[in-house]
């Protein structure tokens, strides 16, 4: 059965700390891995990763994929209160000719001032 597991489930840090969120997966016919940030409503897109070892960066956020060990990490440096959110990892799978995304349960990050 395809699955995506995120850890930790929740995390509380202080402003300025660096955090690392983990996403491991077991899926049929892996195509890509995506990270989303979800605050009060719709998840917003952060990164899409398709190749191992290539880091994607956007400001204080960065992410990398390891297709051999089947995981990805999302790093946030110099955290701010605005980073408080649920971070979702999703893996694109192509089990039977029609693709779909499988989501992890998310990591809830709270950044304290």
């Amino acid at each position: 059965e395809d699955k995506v597991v995120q850890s930790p489930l929740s995390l509380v840090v202080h402003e300025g700390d660096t955090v690392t969120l983990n996403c491991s997966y077991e899926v049929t016919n892996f195509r890509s891995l995506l990270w989303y940030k979800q605050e009060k409503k719709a998840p917003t897109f952060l990164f899409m990763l398709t190749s191992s070892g290539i880091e994607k960066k956007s400001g204080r956020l960065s992410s990398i994929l390891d297709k051999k060990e089947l995981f990805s990490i999302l790093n946030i440096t110099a955290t701010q209160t605005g980073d408080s959110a649920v971070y979702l990892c999703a893996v694109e799978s192509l089990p039977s000719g029609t693709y779909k995304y499988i989501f992890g349960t998310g990591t809830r990050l709270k950044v304290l001032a």
Partner: protein
Amino acid sequence: DVKVTQSSRYLVKRTGEKVFLECVQDMDHENMFWYRQDPGLGLRLIYFSYDVKMKEKGDIPEGYSVSREKKERFSLILESASTNQTSMYLCASSFRANYGYTFGSGTRLTVV
């Protein structure tokens, strides 16, 4: 600004009612998806559609049906709402595989 619009943010329905959740996208996307999101369970795929009048079951289709009569609109139907269908429902669309999703704002449905 391109977007996915869900018709209601909050909805309260009675057990046994027929419920329609509407989703409209203005990006000419081929693929549309319905998920439900529950604490501790994450997002689970209910149904998806990769073309007009086409639909495929996701991981938890029981108790739901869908309709896609036009490319821009994908409706989720609860034929007879039950309390275990109380959840946040998220609609998403994508251009094609490997392009990621754009999500709607979600509909928080409470069945009493």
